[in-house]
């Protein structure tokens, strides 16, 4: 025997009225079969059977008021009663007649609640949105900017002002001297090269023991470079880093670094491949003279496809010569000297010339560069 207690038919309803029974005592019923029509304060609803089995007793006739949770119908059934089918005072209070409230044993930890705002506060930088964007783009720390806007507001101009100050910020003490002419051009070109070029320098000693004494090393080097560019043309080239284009040259316009008190000059030996050794020596001597008298023409200083810096006349063995864009290679020649050289099990006193080749790794591979340097050395030692 199971007793079905009247459930809450609405939301917190205390009772309901029987309008019409659809079944009578002794009837067999199925689960969910409508048993009765009930009227509540909210609506008329049919109550479905919670069990399958036989109706033993109906607790109330038509128009009877049944309290929520009071015995309603007695069944004869084998089914286990569901949790809802218990007298109302035995049902645990879920805290609501509708929905499910989350409950937990959790402690509500409010910590240190502050009514209103915390007292201590740091004053934030106030900046116009455009000034913030500009500062972000220019990588400027807004806290360093001096505000001139209304109410201490940083304006975009304030950000630019700081940038201007920073670019002039290296204050040199005492009298200074502005750079002019060649020295100024050198500063600009070298800075450009440093910004753009990805330089790699490889060094090697050329064993020049076998070269006849009084050989014209400069001319020999130029001839060797010309010959090497035929084997490895990628070093006799111009490169444009923006468009990523290169131009290889058949002719060799060789820039020759000439140091003067005024600054660095790089006159260009045009079509170096077309000149004899005597002609090359003549051109070199002419350039040295015209550079020292400042009579070298601007066109003579342009268009180098590769350069040679013979710095060893003064001092210095190895160097990392700087490429002048758009060229991609420069060969530095250091001071040659006598060294002990092992040869066929013997130590002989020989002579070496240190060579330093800088190439722009954006345009030239390491393999091409080493091949080129090897080729220069081989041609340098060629006997005519």
């Amino acid at each position, binding site marked *: 025997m199971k007793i079905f207690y009247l459930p809450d038919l609405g*939301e*917190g309803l*205390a009772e309901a009225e029987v309008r019409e029974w659809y079944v009578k005592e002794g009837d067999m019923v199925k689960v969910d079969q409508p048993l009765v029509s009930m009227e509540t*304060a*909210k609506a008329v609803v049919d109550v479905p059977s919670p069990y399958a089995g036989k109706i033993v007793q109906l607790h109330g006739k038509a128009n009877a008021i049944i309290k929520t949770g009071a015995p309603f119908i007695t069944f004869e059934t084998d089914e286990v009663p569901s949790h809802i089918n218990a007298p109302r005072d035995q049902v645990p*209070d879920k*805290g*609501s*007649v*509708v*929905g*499910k*409230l*989350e*409950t*937990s*044993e*959790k*402690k*509500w*930890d*409010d*910590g240190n*609640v*502050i*009514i*209103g*705002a*915390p007292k201590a*506060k*740091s*004053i*934030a*930088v*106030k*900046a*116009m*949105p455009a000034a*913030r964007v500009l500062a*972000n783009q220019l990588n400027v720390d807004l806290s360093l900017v001096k505000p001139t806007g209304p*109410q201490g*507001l940083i304006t975009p101009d304030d950000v630019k002002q700081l940038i201007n100050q920073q670019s002039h910020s290296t204050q040199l003490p005492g009298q200074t001297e502005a750079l002019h002419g060649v020295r100024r051009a050198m500063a600009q070109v070298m800075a450009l090269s440093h910004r753009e070029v990805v330089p790699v320098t490889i060094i090697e000693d050329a064993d020049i023991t076998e070269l006849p004494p009084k050989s014209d090393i400069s001319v020999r080097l130029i001839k060797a470079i010309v010959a090497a560019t035929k084997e490895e043309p990628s070093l006799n080239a111009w490169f444009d880093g923006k468009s990523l284009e290169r131009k290889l040259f058949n002719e060799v316009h060789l820039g020759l670094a000439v140091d003067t008190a005024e600054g660095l000059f790089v006159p260009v030996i045009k079509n170096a491949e077309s000149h004899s050794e005597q002609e090359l020596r003549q051109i070199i001597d002419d350039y040295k003279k015209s550079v020292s008298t400042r009579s070298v023409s601007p066109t003579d200083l342009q268009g180098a496809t590769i350069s040679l810096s013979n710095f060893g006349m003064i001092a210095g063995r190895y160097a990392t010569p700087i490429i002048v864009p758009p060229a991609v290679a420069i060969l530095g020649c250091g001071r040659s000297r006598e060294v002990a050289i092992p040869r066929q099990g013997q130590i002989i006193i020989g002579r070496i010339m240190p060579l330093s080749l800088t190439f722009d790794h954006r345009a030239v591979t390491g393999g091409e560069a080493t091949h080129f340097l090897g080729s220069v050395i081989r041609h340098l030692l060629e006997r005519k």
Partner: protein
Amino acid sequence: MTEITLVEAVNQALAYEMEANPDVIVMGEDVAKDGGVFRATVGLVDKFGPERVLDTPLAESMIAGLAIGMAARGLKPVAEFQFMGFIYPAIDQIINHAARLRNRTRGRLSCPVVFRTPFGAGIHAPEHHSESTEAMFAHTPGLRVVIPSSPARAYGLLLASIRDPDPVVFLEPSRLYRFAKQEVANDGKALPLDVCFTLRMGDDVTLVTWGAMVKETLAAASALHDQGISAEVIDVATIKPLDMDTILASLEKTGRCVIVHEAPLTCGVGAEIAAQVVEKALFSLKAPPERVTGFDTIVPYAKLEKYYIPSEKRIIEAVHRIMEFT
């Protein structure tokens, strides 16, 4: 001190003030014998009798009208609506009368009534039991809208609301009713109205929220802390009138703001806060304000509820977005 839930704190505040002030009346559907749909008023009728704890008919407009009449004549009624979705029949009374009584009578009458109702989703109830339409009341001149988010604030703010001489819409986050317990002294001390509560201090971003979303927002702040982002959490508590001073003071420090509310995005209270933030703190902002809110839809049924309610994850993602502005 005993540890009590938020709904018990509501009950405790009502009992305290009924004891202290014989003018306080509790009324609503099933509030007396049944103790209220969420049991917020349980036991009050036994203590204070059926003359002060009134079971009303199922007629919300009447509940509000009756309460306004009582308030105009000097009583302090606290009227309960079973769910926020049931308050709409009473809106005529609330907007046209409760909110205007002081103005209409040039100050001769005031309307010290508290309209209490549970609100918000997350309890697997039908959709008109789940909404958060606080903006409708916040938009109405003459109403004060107060939302507690912890047992202690439910107790202190409800006492303050009952003692206030003007009408208060007091919205109780049903999702938090029994979520956790807190020690609350039953000492009758009210908390101030019209002021935010800073629940957690931080330097990188200000999270502004209220009601049930305080739970997810605090959880997000804690997770952000582990990621090295220091979040300040502000419980607005009184959404009308807004305490912008506290929010702006925080933004002066952090320069970044995420507003979290369960109500739909469009014309939510978050829109008002964002507007004032831009008007008054634009030059302190490092990033545009973000809102993490419910969607512009009816609150879905139980299965989809958790997708509707802004999650800890959504809050954290919003913070990550604005942290990209340096």
